[in-house]
């Protein structure tokens, strides 16, 4: 494009392939001398559920956290919903606006009730009125089946319930993409399924989801695509069926063997 180009929107060619809602190009990240991510390329399309798995230390969490700029990436490009994630506060804020994030440790606000946890951010970050924030929160708490717990504090709930509150809290910001960072790893086994059930419902409703998880059965049942990270690189990025039934690399085959 030259400087004299008319200030008119350039008509786009009808896309044969839709543009991804998340694009990572050559994303790298190191801590000191230790490089955690090496040139990661990844795209996620609208409505897709993508599971990231891999051995511990492979960079899964760093990858998902770098998309929310909780770990600033050192090089490469991250584009979320058309916004280039730079280290500028405005760009970070705009990207986070599109994302909902769920953490391994729930990270609820211990001094607020379940309802307060869900309504606070919409009120201060989106300027929603208390009434509409409450209405929205109650609807989403209904969805994670916790309406009756709305007035309780996080410490009065089980781990599974807390994680479902965390999901509702993230959904209250009406994000276009949900990021899950090992959402069931801190849960007792009997609570894992109630959280996975909520996530599965969300995926079926068409939410775009990126999940770091060790729950391979969940991945097999729900994910459209699975990504296997190894030592900070994408070792496999394949549709779920071939990922599990015909692992394309010996590393993935060995990993699956050790897990299933």
């Amino acid at each position, binding site marked *: 494009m030259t400087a004299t180009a008319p200030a008119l929107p350039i008509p786009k060619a009808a896309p044969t392939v839709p543009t991804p809602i998340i694009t990572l190009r050559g994303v790298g990240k190191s801590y000191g001398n230790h490089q955690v991510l090496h040139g990661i390329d990844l795209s996620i399309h609208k409505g897709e559920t993508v599971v990231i798995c891999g051995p511990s230390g492979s960079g899964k969490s760093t990858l998902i956290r770098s998309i*929310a700029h*909780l770990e600033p990436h050192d090089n490469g490009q991250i584009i979320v919903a058309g916004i280039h994630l730079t280290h500028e506060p405005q760009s970070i*804020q705009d990207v*986070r*606006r599109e*994302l*909902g*994030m769920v*953490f391994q*440790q729930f*990270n*609820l*606000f*211990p*001094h607020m009730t379940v309802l307060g946890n869900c309504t*606070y*951010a919409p009120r*201060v*970050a*989106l300027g929603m009125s208390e009434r509409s924030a409450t209405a929205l929160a109650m609807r989403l708490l209904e969805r994670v089946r916790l309406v009756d717990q709305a007035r*309780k*504090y*996080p*410490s*009065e709930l089980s781990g599974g319930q807390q994680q479902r509150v*965390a999901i509702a*809290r*993230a959904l209250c*910001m009406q994000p276009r993409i949900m990021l899950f960072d090992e959402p069931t790893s801190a849960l007792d086994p009997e609570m894992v399924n109630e959280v996975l059930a909520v996530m599965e419902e969300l995926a079926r409703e068409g939410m775009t989801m990126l999940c770091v998880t060790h729950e391979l059965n969940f991945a097999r049942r729900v994910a459209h695509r699975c990504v296997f990270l190894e030592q900070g690189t994408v070792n496999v990025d394949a549709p779920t069926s071939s990922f599990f039934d015909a692992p394309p690399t010996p590393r993935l085959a060995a990993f699956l063997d050790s897990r299933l």
Partner: protein
Amino acid sequence: MHYDIALAWSTLPQLLRGAAMTLAVLIPVLALGLVIAIPLALRRASPGRRWIAAGYVGFFRGVPSLILLYAIYNGLPQLAGIRNGPLWPLFSNAYFCAVVGLSLTHSAYLAEILRAGLQAVPQGVVEAATALGMRPNVIFWKVRWPIAARHALRAYQNEILIMVKSTAAVGAITLVELNAAANEVFEFTYDPFTPLLTAAAIYWAMINIIRLGFDAAERYLNAGQTRALIS
């Protein structure tokens, strides 16, 4: 050892005036201490330029408050700059010097209490707030600070109770607070027990009223969430 009830009753107004002075020193010290301690704690709990706050805390926790009071009330006037300067009306006033001296000590201790509270806030909770798009100042005042305050409450209560008794030191710079008032009665009557025991009872009552206040605050702040914050 004999407790003279008649003497205790007749000197009670004198001791209560002393107790009023104790509170008159204590209350501004607590307020001023908090105002000084918050920025110190923030500096201590954040990366970079920590040494100023660390130096302040290290110095004023180390200096005995009695010596600090003497230094401010009796020492500073030795400097011509103070004696002839615009601040002389303040530094020639024992009450002012008492409040300043105790505030310096109290704020240094309180800064450490608040720093520990801030550092006890789980990093993940702050990250969650960040990911939810909250601005840093909102995260500080609505997430970090309330959680830190709950962690710090027990230690803050302790520090205040110790401070109540530390106010006795200001008797050394001519203020007649509760302990000095009891000593005056002793000097007039040569009864060592009655005024001091009465003063002790008044201290005890003050401390337990404060303690009950803290208990109520704790119940209010921890409504239904004690486990999460203690664990």
